[in-house]
């Protein structure tokens, strides 16, 4: 851990908030991707479509 001096709170806060925001975005993206995959598979099963990809 480097010595951040008086500004430790600011630096760590900035990194914390950024990681939270970007992490949230990545998590949401992956969640939605998984859901879409499942929805498509279900739709294909229902309608007898040929799965491609």
């Amino acid at each position: 851990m480097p010595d951040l001096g008086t500004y430790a709170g600011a630096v760590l806060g900035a990194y914390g908030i950024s990681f939270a925001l970007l992490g949230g975005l990545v998590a949401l993206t992956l969640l939605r991707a998984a859901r879409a995959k499942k929805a498509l598979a279900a739709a294909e099963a229902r309608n007898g479509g040929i799965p491609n990809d």
Partner: protein
Amino acid sequence: MRLSGRVLPVLSALAAVSLAAGLVWGFFFTPDDYQQGSTVKIIYLHVPAALMAINAWIMMLVASLIWFIRRHHVSALAARAAAPVGATFTLVALATGAIWGQPMWGTWWAWDPRLTSFLILFVFYLGYIALWEAVEDSEKAADLTAALCMVGSVFALLSRYAVLFWNQGLHQGASLSLDKEENVADVFYQPLLLSIAGFVLLFVVLVLIRTRTEIRLRRAAALDQRGTARA
């Protein structure tokens, strides 16, 4: 779809590696700035996020133009996929900027041209996303949002210059430019480039995943529609 499926893992890995390397290098192995102290480390998040916040809009504009001219469906979906990513990057740039501004300028927020322009950009992203959500017919939604993106680009640019006229700012000049005089020092420059590469790759990966999601959802909807039509 097949090509993007194959390159996606590679790109994801590259994004993770360069992002981690750039940020770790910047966070642990760079000296403090003689004026800013350790807050200079925020630059590795702030500058790449800000850069990509603007580039994401430009990418949406290009995708919208392609949709308008060639009516290539994937391009409309890619523009839709990029908007939340761009909005999040804008938010990261604003948040890190505020946190940096508090100890350095003595204020969280100032109505400085750059800050204000980013807030305006954020509002444009939100409006764009809201219009996508509001229009039910997907073809019409793609057309309308593409039109909004083009109109919005013109007005975002106009606002940028209007805001410059409105108030002189606190914000420093470009951190990165071809004009070396203005640049940040080399010690900070190299990890910064690496983390910019990381943000670019992260953007590409996220947009690819989200575009694939949109394609799948649309395909599922089309299948169901055909199914009910047949039944």
